């Protein structure tokens, strides 16, 4: 198969000392970020992005994606040992993971979490390896109308399928799209929404907004909570690891089911949070003795962790193949691609083979190395939580400021970051979701360009979005998804009630 040959080439790109060292550094930083309160996957990647500005794109993406894998692994440590989910997608892991730790089975629970994370990622990476080249070569035939239809589909599915109040998703998304348009118009060269400000001429940088929205606001939110914690210390012995692995085949149905759910929700913008809960709930529903869940059952750790990681990893599939991120972190990685001078989209597979296959190979290698690393270093990372938050908080603020300033060397961006920090804090507290905003801000200009190019091509006829079978079905699907809650209600009324 062609994909296998290219993958081997990717490993060859990867196997240099420099890349391997960057991979380790990325994983360690990632676990660190995952364990610390007030930081998380998207923040960590956003804050550490400036480190990669002077690197070549392949080394940069390897390090950043490893930060992401590390953060995913790190979230499980605090969930199980301290009952504190470092990330929202680790909440379901606490249901059975913490009871296991209380029963003295912390090592077993951690091994289960890390192993299932590994399995989930592996399934998703396999999917990416074989599916992404196919999708991207198919998407090479896309013209502006098709691309606009795909963007529309992404936006509409966020509104229609998201769990937040619909109007709040709409607010978040339209605000993101609007702010993406601030500055010089790429088609006509006119200035838009700058109100005479020279600072706004450059536009609102996506990464600055992300650092404020996720980094600064997270610090403010974390301070609101009681930061005292009590947890179990654990070290993992080889005997425990082998014991858990020996039993692994017994849970193949759970692992496979969760991987499938995770991949599905990762590619569509459902996200890792929904995936982990759905994985857990389905494992519970299909179990013979479902009441033993929540009392320290190992399957209750396997199910959500597999789903969360499968989802987090497969979110990179649409980003690589189409240039459309499936999650907040993927959106930040996409922002990184642009900083390194790459043009995200299907051409990436043709023009930058080394980069794409180096990244895919690093997903395999990063997960294996990450698994070994977390299994051996849990006690070290658990003790990071002993560091008082009063020391961690200002350091995170400083890192955010360095990140925000470094992007364009502009002092104005520091203030913008602070402003977005406040906006993020308020939005999170009143339930306006930030993921659609992030996605809209990074895709806004590309969506608008695709729209305008389609319109110029068709002479202003909106019918271009139904001009052939492909673009017509994507546009129609987008509109169906946008009104899905209404359609679903109507179907229910005429007796087509679904039960999932």
């Amino acid at each position: 198969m062609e994909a296998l040959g290219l993958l081997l080439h990717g490993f060859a790109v990867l196997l240099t000392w420099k890349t391997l060292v960057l991979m380790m550094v990325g994983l360690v930083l990632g676990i660190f970020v995952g364990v610390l309160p007030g930081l998380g996957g998207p923040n960590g990647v956003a804050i550490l992005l400036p480190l990669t500005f002077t690197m070549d794109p392949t080394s940069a993406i390897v390090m950043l994606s490893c930060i992401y894998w590390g953060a995913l692994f790190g979230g499980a440590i605090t969930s199980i040992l301290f009952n504190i989910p470092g990330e929202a997608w680790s909440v379901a892991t606490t249901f059975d993971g913490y009871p296991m730790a209380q029963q003295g089975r912390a090592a077993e629970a951690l091994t289960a979490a890390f192993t299932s994370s590994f399995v989930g990622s592996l399934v998703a990476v396999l999917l990416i390896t074989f599916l992404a080249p196919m999708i991207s070569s198919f998407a090479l035939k896309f013209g502006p109308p098709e691309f606009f239809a795909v963007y529309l589909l992404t936006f509409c599915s966020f509104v229609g399928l998201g769990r937040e109040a619909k109007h709040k998703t709409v607010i978040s998304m339209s605000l993101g799209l609007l702010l993406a348009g601030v500055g010089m118009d790429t088609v006509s060269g006119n200035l838009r929404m700058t109100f005479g400000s020279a600072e706004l001429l450059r536009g609102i940088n996506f990464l600055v907004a992300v650092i404020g929205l996720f980094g600064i606001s997270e610090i403010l939110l974390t301070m609101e909570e009681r930061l005292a914690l009590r947890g179990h210390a654990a070290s993992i012995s080889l005997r425990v690891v082998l014991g858990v692995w020996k039993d692994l085949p017994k849970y193949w149905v759970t692992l496979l089911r969760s991987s499938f759910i995770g991949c599905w929700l990762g590619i569509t913008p459902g996200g890792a949070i929904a995936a982990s809960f759905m994985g857990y709930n389905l494992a519970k529903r299909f179990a013979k003795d479902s009441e033993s869940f929540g009392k320290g059952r190992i399957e209750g750790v396997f199910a959500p962790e597999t789903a969360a990681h499968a989802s987090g990893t497969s979110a990179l599939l649409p980003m690589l193949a189409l240039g459309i991120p499936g999650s907040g972190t993927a959106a930040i990685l996409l922002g990184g691609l642009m900083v390194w001078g790459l043009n995200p989209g299907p051409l990436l597979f043709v023009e930058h083979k080394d980069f794409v296959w180096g990244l895919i190979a690093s997903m395999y290698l990063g997960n294996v190395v990450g698994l070994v690393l977390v299994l051996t270093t849990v006690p070290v990372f658990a003790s990071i939580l002993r560091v008082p938050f009063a020391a961690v908080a200002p350091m995170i603020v400083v890192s955010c400021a360095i990140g925000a300033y470094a992007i364009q060397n502009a002092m104005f961006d520091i203030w913008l970051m602070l402003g977005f920090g406040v906006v993020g804090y308020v939005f999170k507290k009143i339930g306006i979701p930030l993921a659609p905003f992030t996605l809209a801000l990074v895709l806004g200009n590309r969506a608008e360009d695709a729209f305008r190019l389609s319109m110029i091509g068709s002479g202003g006829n909106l019918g271009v979005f139904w001009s052939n079978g492909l673009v017509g079905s994507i546009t129609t699907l987008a509109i169906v998804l946008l009104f899905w809650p209404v359609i679903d209600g109507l179907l229910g009324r005429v007796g087509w009630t679904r039960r999932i």
Partner: protein
Amino acid sequence: MSQTDLEIVVDDPTAPEDDSPSVVSSGTIEIVVCVLLLALAVTLGYDNWRTGASWDATGPEPGYFPFYLSIILGGGSLYGLIAALLARRAAFESFVTRAQARRVMAVFVPTLLFCLVMQFLGLYVASFLLIAGFMRLVGKIALWKSLLTAFVFTAIMFVTFDIAFDVIMPKGPLEAAFGR
């Protein structure tokens, strides 16, 4: 194997009390946010209309796309405003309690000062002051520990960004005195 006893215990002596009175309800904040967003939508919508929001010979004018987005944003915020006004006041929980607000301000105000001081003294000196000051005054950590941590962290940042990766940060008189 692991042990059942608790081995890592971290206390939080300044934690916000659970019974602290609410400063403002999230319903009020929702109304304020919706009004602000509505005002933003009107301002941006007007600006885009002024730029040109219709069609010309080549296709949509520059303001076309953002003009309709302003309308969507305005519609969403108007809906949110009406929904929040009609909802029962009791349905909303507290947005922030007094104790929580105090803690949030304890980190927000230093961050604001940090951004201000950075303009004059550069990022590294401001970072040192922020970390040392925050650890000492908010965290009540021993002075020598605070100063040492702040110095080590700032030095690591300086070496990493300024020397190793060539990412140049704003600098002030101190760096100038050392010729960097």
